[in-house]
């Protein structure tokens, strides 16, 4: 990682060494110390505690009882709990695949007008969903997707009145509807990231392809896609994490309902820990979620990083 920077080595004279009183190692760690301390206190310690809690049955107030792997067994056997993880995976489809694929399509189509004034305006506009709190996105869309909301109004307007429903209150559509909210939040970021990546691809490649008579599709497949490996990796990583760890949007739009149709690990942890006070069970689910995120993110990083960094 240190790269070629350390190539120049000069012998050290004794005088210099004496002048620098704190030894380099100690000095370096002194610089890192504040970061290390806050990190250990507010990330590593809670992380270890989560693992510890997960082996206990604890209501957060009284004394805790050691229960070994019971919480994990329940996590696997209780369909309500394991279902939350399935829901999170289903959300990946919306939070991740849809924005990345659509983003690719849009970015590829608008590549040639990337410098136009329209595109500059679009840069600002498409970022709005990234800037606002997810809670706000949830509130807006809850209203759009309600029985009397804009979506149903539009459907009725184009003669599809039979399709109208309470999107967030319907067992069949609640999870996809939540997914749509996530897709809305992510699509702008993905489009712009991919577009930025495309602008780094050498234009002469495209010109050459055109001269060879390549159509837009071939151009996309043989030039754009390979050139975007890293950006696609980033988009997928960011969006997959946001899907697996989703909380804000669901908290304000469905609270996990109807039934448990939109219950995701993040929300279930919150309910378990603070409403039902099953701190142990909540922690087991938290451990599972953390591991899951790592398991999903590491391979993506592997696949898309080409060792340049």
């Amino acid at each position, binding site marked *: 990682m240190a790269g070629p920077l350390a190539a120049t080595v000069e012998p050290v004279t004794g005088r210099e060494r004496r002048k620098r009183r704190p030894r380099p190692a100690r000095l370096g760690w002194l610089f890192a110390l504040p970061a290390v301390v806050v990190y250990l206190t507010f990330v590593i310690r809670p992380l270890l505690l989560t693992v510890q809690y997960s082996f206990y049955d604890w209501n957060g107030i009284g004394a805790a009882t050691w229960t070994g792997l019971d919480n994990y067994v329940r996590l696997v056997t209780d369909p309500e709990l394991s279902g939350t993880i399935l829901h999170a995976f289903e959300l990946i489809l919306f939070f991740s695949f849809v924005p990345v694929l659509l983003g690719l399509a849009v970015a590829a189509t608008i590549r040639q007008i990337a410098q136009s004034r329209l595109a500059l305006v679009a840069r600002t506009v498409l970022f709005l969903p990234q800037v606002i709190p997810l809670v706000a996105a949830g509130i807006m869309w809850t209203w759009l997707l309600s029985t009397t909301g804009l979506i149903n109004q539009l459907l009725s307007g184009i003669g599809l009145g039979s399709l109208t429903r309470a999107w967030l209150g319907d067992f069949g559509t609640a999870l996809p509807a939540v997914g749509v909210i996530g897709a809305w939040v992510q699509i702008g*970021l993905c489009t712009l990231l991919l577009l930025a990546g495309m602008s780094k691809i050498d234009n002469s490649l495209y010109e050459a392809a055109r001269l060879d008579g390549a159509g837009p599709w071939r151009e996309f497949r043989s030039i754009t896609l390979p050139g975007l490996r890293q950006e696609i990796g980033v988009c997928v990583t960011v969006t997959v994490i946001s899907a697996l760890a989703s909380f804000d949007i669901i908290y304000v739009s469905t609270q996990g309902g109807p039934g448990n149709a939109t219950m995701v690990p993040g929300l279930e942890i919150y309910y378990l820990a603070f409403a039902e006070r099953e701190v142990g069970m909540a922690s087991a689910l938290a451990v599972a979620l953390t591991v899951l995120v790592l398991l999903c993110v590491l391979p993506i990083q592997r696949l898309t990083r080409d060792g340049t960094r």
Partner: protein
Amino acid sequence: MIVTRRETLTGRILLVLLMVLTVLPFVSLFVTALHPSGTYPDGLSWPSSPQWGNFIDAFQAANMERLLLSSALIVLGVVPVSVLFGTMAGFAFGHLRMPGHRIGFLVFVLGLTLPFEGLITPLYYQVRDMGLLNTRWAIILPLIGLFMPFSVLWMRAHFITMPDELSEAARIDGASTWQLFWRVHVPLARPALTSLGILLFLWTWNQFLLAIVLVDDPAKRTMAGALGAFQGQWGTDIPLLCAGSLLILTPTLAIFLIFQRRFVAALLQGSLKG
């Protein structure tokens, strides 16, 4: 360049469509906010008599000025400290590269993808035992820790591109490491620092989970947490909720529009490095 006119046109249409899709929820929110308080308006419809007063009501109901102050205080508590600590550690890991820097850095990278939900339960008890529950410190201190992996990573990525010759020159002039850091490296790192500051500002301002778990009083929360409380209290009155949501969004939107170029650049780089 060889570009067919049809392609450009499709591109434009697609882009406009995407923008409309992005803006539509905001428009719907705005229009709904103008309907009489307590009604359930139908979809996107302009009210017969726009109730601009809803915004004033929502402003008062939400205690807007207190919310703004609270979020600002939290941001002031989180961002400068995070940037400073992150820069110092990034400098150490990226430039000083003392023994053990790789493993140290790796430990930070590990924290990068941790979902906050995975830590929130012990954090709650930890903050409670520190006696900080329901104070702004309950949000500020954990956030500094939680932002550390990203801050360190971000600043290290910057410092690793700084040529060693730079430091050598300064050392020959007799600068200590501390002076080297402040006089030479920090000024040069300004673009990276600004971007980091912007990202941390945004993430602090929009932090929801920590706010609702660790602080009960909306007037001591972040904007996003306050919005959650506002929905809890006024969620039954749709126009008022919409007006309040818009008000709560306004500061972020305003800051975003003013600093939009830095924002966009920061966000793009931010996700690339993250």
